[in-house]
């Protein structure tokens, strides 16, 4: 991927964050976050828990509201305009730590529901697209089951398929493998790798250093609401500059 990344930075950024600040009550979660994400780029965000990395990506599709600064996604600025928020959400897919599949719907219905009501696709077309994506994540035979009947890894792959079904330009991953048994992590990471190879713009919050090293174009390190360090994986893992980064890496590697 590194071979192509140089080409990507000639494009306009698809996400622009400028001096984003956010508070939970009195607690200052995000402090002056400024970052650009370019089309087809894979940005991996790591950092200790409570450092604000999840909150940051949840701000990008407005699951959390930021109080200061600006976030521009695909040319639309995130504000209080409901139409803008809806438009941005249509372009962004999100995958959660706890999968958040809809337990009362079958796998197929989970994937086709939003297509029908948000993308206004006919029933058949939505189902076709859902099956296509289930094949892509490797579990077409589970289409008729309910999420409760699937393993964690399978559920997370369905969640990825559900997000992809909306044909998003950007995918946000919020610790997608943290709730999984070690045996199932790989199947999810493999799907994410394939997705990255296909040229999807991805923001990934994760603790999987191997994935970051292998797939990321850029790694951001969050600590106490700030981006403490950023750089290519090689640079980040081999030659970290900041003391906090060194400490963090020494503890997890």
């Amino acid at each position, binding site marked *: 991927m590194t071979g192509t990344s140089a080409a990507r930075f000639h494009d306009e950024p698809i996400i622009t964050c400028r001096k984003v600040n956010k508070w939970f009550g009195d607690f200052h979660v995000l402090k002056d976050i400024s970052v650009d994400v370019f089309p087809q780029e894979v940005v991996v965000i790591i950092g200790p828990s409570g450092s604000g990395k999840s909150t940051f990506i949840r701000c990008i*599709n407005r*699951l959390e509201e930021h109080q200061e600064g600006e976030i521009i996604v695909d040319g639309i600025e995130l504000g209080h305009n409901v139409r803008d928020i*809806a438009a941005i*959400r*249509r372009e*962004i*897919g*999100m995958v*959660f730590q*706890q999968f*958040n*599949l*809809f*337990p*009362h719907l079958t796998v197929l219905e989970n994937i086709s*529901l*939003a297509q029908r*009501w*948000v993308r206004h696709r006919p029933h058949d077309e939505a189902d076709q697209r859902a099956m296509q994506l289930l094949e892509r994540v490797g579990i077409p035979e589970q*289409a*008729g089951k*309910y*999420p*409760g*009947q699937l393993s964690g890894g399978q559920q997370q792959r369905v*969640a990825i398929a*559900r*997000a992809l079904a*909306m044909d998003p330009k950007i995918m946000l991953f919020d610790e997608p493998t943290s709730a999984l048994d070690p045996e199932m992590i790989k199947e999810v990471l493999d799907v994410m790798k394939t997705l990255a190879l296909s040229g999807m713009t991805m923001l990934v919050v994760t603790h999987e250093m191997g994935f970051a090293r292998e797939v990321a174009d850029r790694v951001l390190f969050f600590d106490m609401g700030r981006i403490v360090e950023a750089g290519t994986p090689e640079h980040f893992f081999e030659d970290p500059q900041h003391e906090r980064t060194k400490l963090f890496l020494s503890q997890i590697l």
Partner: protein
Amino acid sequence: MTDMPQPERVVTYVNTGEVVNRPAPLLTAGPLAWIRRNLFSSVFDTALTFLFAITVIGAIYGLVNWSIQQANWFVVTLNLRQFMLGRYEVDPEWRVHLAAMLVVFGTGIALAAFSRVRWRTFAALAIVAAVLVAVPVVIEAALPLPPLYVTAGNMPIASGSVTQEAQSRLAFTARAGEEFRIAVAAQASGDEALAVQSGFMDKATNNLRNAAESRLLAQARLAELDRLLASDLLTANQRVALTGERDRLTIPDPVVERYAVNQAAVTVRVLRGTTLEVLAEATLSADSGPLSVTLPDEGWYVLEKTIAGDAPATAILRVDGMYPLLQRSFSRADAGGGSAGRVNQYIRMTDNFLTEAPLPKIDGQDVPFAVIIDNQYRGVRPFADYLRVHLAPFLKLITPALWQALILLALGVVAGRLADRFFSPADRPRRTSVRVATWLIIVLPIVAFFLAYGVGNVLPVTDTRNWGGLLLTMMLTVVGIIGSFPLGVLLALGRRSDLPVVRYLSILYIETVRGVPLVTVLFMAQLLVPFLNPALADIDAVFRAMVGITLFSAAYLAENVRGGLQAIPPGQVEAARALGLAGWQITLFITLPQALRAVIPALVGQCISLFKDTSLVTIVGLIDLTGISNAVVAQTEFIGLRREAYVFITVLYFVFSYAMSYVSRRLEMSGSGAVRRA
């Protein structure tokens, strides 16, 4: 210490041999283990088990004993229509039947759609129903009906302060070909036998029996007093009191001697009710055989019984083939819609044989007939009489309905399955039946309501004041549930709304209604509403009760649904928002379905309590199941039979409540509940 064997120190036990599963020891699996674990696991447990067993057995023994030996179940069998329909008009009765059939059929489709139907269950139900059909047939073939004892005589018979004359003529009904037999009751020749005699008895015989019974009681008390006075355990005061009682106690003359029971011969005649032609005639005495007549036609007959000679005497006669009758009179509309006048129906209590032929007349006077109040069953009823008189006729009454219900239910299941086979896609094998059932759940109650109520000119509108019994209870319940469901859901959503006005209005409504008893709401609907606006006074009382129940139930339903909404993890809404779904779409497709499914047990619990709470409408003058049992036992024929009526409606309430909770458990266990709970 040194002579103690040192345990061998095993560090690791590596077992590379074949893995063999051995059966569990006897007391860890199987019924014995279950009993030990659940009933006798500790001393306290054992004590509780015995205490519980004794309580239950005691209660059930008392109830069963009473219902076999004492209870008069005629109040149920002869008033079944009232219990079911109240005073609902006769002409549109088929519409209620049709509605009930549709509902049962729809239930079958719903079973096919939402639950795993086991044909085994149906087979078991069919066997039970077949047994219920067979039981009365066997009982009737094997057991005779108890006799009716009547007294002939020419002297007044006194028992306490009540004096009765024996009737000389008694009219009764019979079917063609029935055998009528009359003989002098031989066993009633002594007071001891007379006092414990059981069977139907006319008033004179009853007086004789009572007189014999009280004489025996007096004798027993006298013996008791003598025994006490002979002993030296009494205080002076007690001795004075008991001596006084003994002096006042007089033993009546033996009843059989005083009334010369069965001493003189009796002349009996059986007349045809219409023409008064004599069919049979005999003079019976204690040692002569019975007079037997095969009655030629269906209709009325008259029994004449007189003592031969002028000497004062009585005779107790045992009659087989004559049974107590219930008279019902009402006015009926003729074919043209006008009134055809009063109609008298005479119903034979032992088999519900009904005739509308007029009573026989002799010398221009109606002949007294074997009326139910004067010919009650007396004495401790043997089990055989209970089976023959009460159980068999009741089963015969209800089994046709049971069969209809069972067949319609099975047909509904088959229809659902067939629809799935032909119309459902392979990957969703139940889509059609689920869709049909969902529609039916909404549409059927409405159809049933309008069938019972009427629609404009097509189905004449019925007078809701005549609705009663189970019909009214069901109507109130179903309308209450269906009406309160949308209202309750809206209130629950309103209470969680972001808009303060909506939220506080919802809270105000819910908390106000929950702070008021249902009785108050019903009284308001009946009494207060007409004052608010006189136009509202024209609305039927039933409908006002329905509105009251609906408004009341909605507040509780809202709280249940709110509980379900709160239980949904916030991740569900986040995921839906991240997908771009709008607020109403999230509510409709994501949160509400999950919330409702989570609170199915609470919702069904509420339906059950609503079903039972409808009995409160009795207080505002509607005659639901509870009200009708009060009305039924107010009839002269059934006065004092409140216990029987209440036991019956208790069973009815239980059957329907249990059916509801059974359905809810199946719903939870079925694919729509269990599997989806992640």
